[in-house]
């Protein structure tokens, strides 16, 4: 990572799995945040139900989000929008074993009193005809400083599997 990136905290899921990963008490002295997630859930990946998709919320608030996203699945491309908390595909039990979804989330000016924009670049990762790549532009219409970020499975209450990781970086502007 560039020298302006500082690793704030990192977590690796242990053998018992985890229902969620919560980054709390995020310091406010950076310009931007970057969250890098490598995750697999103990449920099947299902783009219709959201199985093995990871949902992200800020400060335990589940409202005031809006999203526009492009999804490619190996055969089709689609553009959609909604007003749910942002989510992204990871890997599920129906994907190639020992592989994890790869996601990079960038949040500029997380400490400002303006609305917060979020860029998400996510790959499902599986050796199959159907695999998902998602680019998402999200907005959290909230003036609060982002002090916590929660990651959890979107639809079925599934757990993060062992060796899933999440690393939060703070980015300085000089």
């Amino acid at each position, binding site marked *: 990572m560039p020298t302006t990136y500082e690793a704030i*905290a990192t977590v690796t899921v242990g053998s018992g*799995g985890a229902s*969620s990963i919560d980054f709390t008490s995020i310091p406010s002295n950076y310009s931007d945040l970057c969250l890098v997630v490598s995750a697999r859930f103990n449920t099947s990946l299902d783009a219709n*139900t959201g199985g093995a998709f990871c949902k992200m919320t800020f400060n335990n608030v589940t409202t005031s989000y809006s999203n526009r996203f492009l999804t490619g699945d190996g055969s089709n491309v689609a553009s959609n929008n909604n007003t749910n908390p942002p989510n992204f595909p990871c890997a599920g039990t129906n994907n190639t074993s020992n592989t994890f979804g790869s996601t990079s989330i960038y949040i500029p000016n997380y400490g400002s009193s303006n609305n917060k924009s979020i860029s998400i670049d996510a790959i499902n990762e599986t050796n199959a005809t159907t695999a998902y790549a998602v680019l998402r532009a999200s907005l959290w219409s909230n003036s609060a400083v982002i002090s916590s970020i929660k990651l959890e499975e979107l*639809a079925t209450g599934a757990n993060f599997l062992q060796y899933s990781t999440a690393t*939060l970086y703070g980015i300085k502007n000089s």
Partner: protein
Amino acid sequence: MPTKLVVDCSTGAVEEIELTAEEVAEMELAAQQAEEQKAREEEEKAAKQAARAEIATRLGLSAEELSTLLS
């Protein structure tokens, strides 16, 4: 009991915390709703396939011929 990982970014400490009964109930409800949604979608898919087969029969087409026309 299911657990969650809470990372205190001010110290870097990672704590594994058991979910409360309410949190577990929420997870179980989400799982149940996902199962019901999946069952509904499978029913709809089966109904569409049955309808296509019926149309193919009425038109005197095989399933492959109908698929070729629609692709």
